[in-house]
């Protein structure tokens, strides 16, 4: 078995990130989009914790907690927007959110 280096963590974080981005870009359901955004944020967290272990200090972990708090607030706001949107349009299909269409 090889050593599990920092690189491994970065690759996993990157993979999670890309999955998250793909989810944001491609999914029709708004709730799934929000979940994808969380995924992106968590991928970033993972990245930060990996670097924190590499450097041997806690900077990365502290920042990761910041991001987590931020993600939570953001999810709350996002869900609030979702609910308000649902009340107007009766759908959670992101393709139908095109009121700013020309």
């Amino acid at each position: 078995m090889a050593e599990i280096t920092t690189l491994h963590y970065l690759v996993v974080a990157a993979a999670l990130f890309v999955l998250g981005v793909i989810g944001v870009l491609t999914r029709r359901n708004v709730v799934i989009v929000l979940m994808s955004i969380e995924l992106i944020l968590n991928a970033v967290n993972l990245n930060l914790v990996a670097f924190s272990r590499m450097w041997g200090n806690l900077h990365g972990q502290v920042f990761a907690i910041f991001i987590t708090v931020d993600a939570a607030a953001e999810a709350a706001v996002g869900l609030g927007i979702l609910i308000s949107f649902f009340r107007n349009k009766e759908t959670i299909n992101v393709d139908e959110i095109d009121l700013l269409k020309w």
Partner: protein
Amino acid sequence: MFFLNHIWLIPLFPAFGAAMMFFFGRRLQKATVSAVCVGVVVLAFLFACFTVVEYTHFAHGTGRPFEKIVYTWLGSGDGHLNFVKRDGRLASFNADAGFLLDPLSSIWLLFVTGVGMVIHIYSVGYMAHEGGYYRFFGYMNLFMFTMLLLILANNYMLLFVGWEGVGLCSYLLIGFYFHRKSASDAASKAFIVNRIGDAGFILGALALSWYLGSFRFIDINALAHSGHFAIGDPVLTAAALLLFVGACGKSAQIPLYVWLPDAMEGPTPVSALIHAATMVTAGVYMVARSNAVYMLAPTAMKTVAIIGALTAVFAASIALVQNDIKRVLAYSTISQLGYMFLALGVGAFAAGVFHVFTHAFFKALLFLGAGSVIHAMSGEQDMRYMGDLRGRISTTYKTMLIGTLAIAGIPPLAGFFSKDEILWQAWRSAEGGFPYLWLIGFGTALMTAFYMARLIFLTFWGQPRMSHEVEHHVHESPKSMTGPLVVLAIGSVCAGWLGVPASFGGRNVFGKFLEPVFAQEVAASVAPREPAGEEHRGLEWTLMVLSVGAAVVGGGWAHHYYAKAGKDYPEPIAVDAPPLYTVLYNKYFVDEAYDYVFTGRRKIGDVRLGAMGAGQASSWFDAKIIDGTVNDVGWVTRAVATLSTWWDKWIIDGLGVNGPAILARMMSYPARLFEWGLVQWYALVMIAGLLGFGVYYVWK
């Protein structure tokens, strides 16, 4: 001085009569009307006599005028208005109700009231069977009132009041038989033609007032005699000519004489009083009154003389062939008035006035005599149907014969002295030129004798040419009519004796009386050509013999043709020169000419002829061409405005303003394609951008 101070009463007597007739006339008896109206004129005459006697004491031969201002109309104190004219003088307007008596107006006063009185008495008999008796006498009195105002006025404005007043009375009296269209037309014609003259009069009077500063005769005479104005002064000449236009209208000279023959539509006493003795002399009076002005305007005087002479011969020629007894006398009046103006024009003012005086007597006599004839002939006025009346109405015949001899100028009757004086002065004057004026006067005298003798012969001699019915009724007129005839006949004989000139051994009372009025009579411009002296006494006698000879020849000629006139007697002129006869009989077609040129009644299609036609043409020109041009200019302005609007709307607004806007909008179409409103699309674009940056940095 009682009568002089109450001179204003003289016009008021007949005014009272007129007022009485106006208010009460309808209810009064004929006798009352006669008593009142004739009575006031008699009163006026007596008063006038006493006044003139008083005046002679007042003047002591100096001829100084007596003036009585009854009411001051305008002006403060001395008649000045409170504004300063351009030349720095104070403007003055003296037009009071004032009366002036001097030798000139004394003469007029006496014969107007005297002859007026005689004619009023005559009218009592003449109008006895006519309707509208009170109306007639009311108008006659009104006429006397205005005529007296005219001659007693001390200024041009009051004179003009009288002037207009006599014109009005002339209208009322000519149109007395108003239910006859010819009469009412004649009245209108008289008034209208008169009015044309009045326009000239007003302009002349105003010109004088503007130039000399006053309307008052005394002021004007003083200024004119002061030597301040040059002889031939243009404003004075213009004023004199304009005043003469007024005189032409009132005194029936060329070209405004056309109303007088038609005025014979009125009753005969009217013709006698107004159109023979008094009203028509108003023009002569006015010119004589303005003699100071005329003496400063030789051109005007020349005009007066020439027109007077032409009128005299012109009217006399027409009278040769007229058949209506009153028409002959009407043209005779015009002709004699021409003599008077001829006299005034050559500077012989006293001679002209003298002729007015004598003419009043014999012309009134002739008209009243004609009235008597018409009365005897049951209304017939055409001489072709008269004849052989001398035995039947002998008083009328004898008096008319005297009148005829007087007008023809047979000595020692009145007309001889006055007419001869005029002819003599015409020969003598510088205006006489090559004595063509005398020649015209001489020819007129010949014609006068001829037509008057013709009148007498056709009316009183020859065979009776009337219908039996009329012949049966021929009778002499009542005493109320023949009395005045006799009085006037006496006047016609004697009146001339007042003016017998020195060369015949007379004292020329008349001329001496008038001397102060015409003091500047012999001004340089009209000085006689020959020196005074014995040689001209012989010339005077020669001319006198010639004119008497002309009268005798004229009378004899008429005797040859007419004395034995039977039914369908031939007119010599018609036989020898038919076209000439036609022209003369139709009065030279002057009335027709005036109709074509001035009245605008004649049209070709829709277009009027003459002066009115010119007006019509001008108005068409103004409406179509001038207004058309204005309209076209307006159209062009509107077209330019439309163009301007289009330019502004399409080019400026369209290209300049809207253009860029449209361009912007055009460009937005492709840009809009990016705005789908899809969040995931936006996210994709963001990622794409990020990747782009990343790739860029990695490659760096």
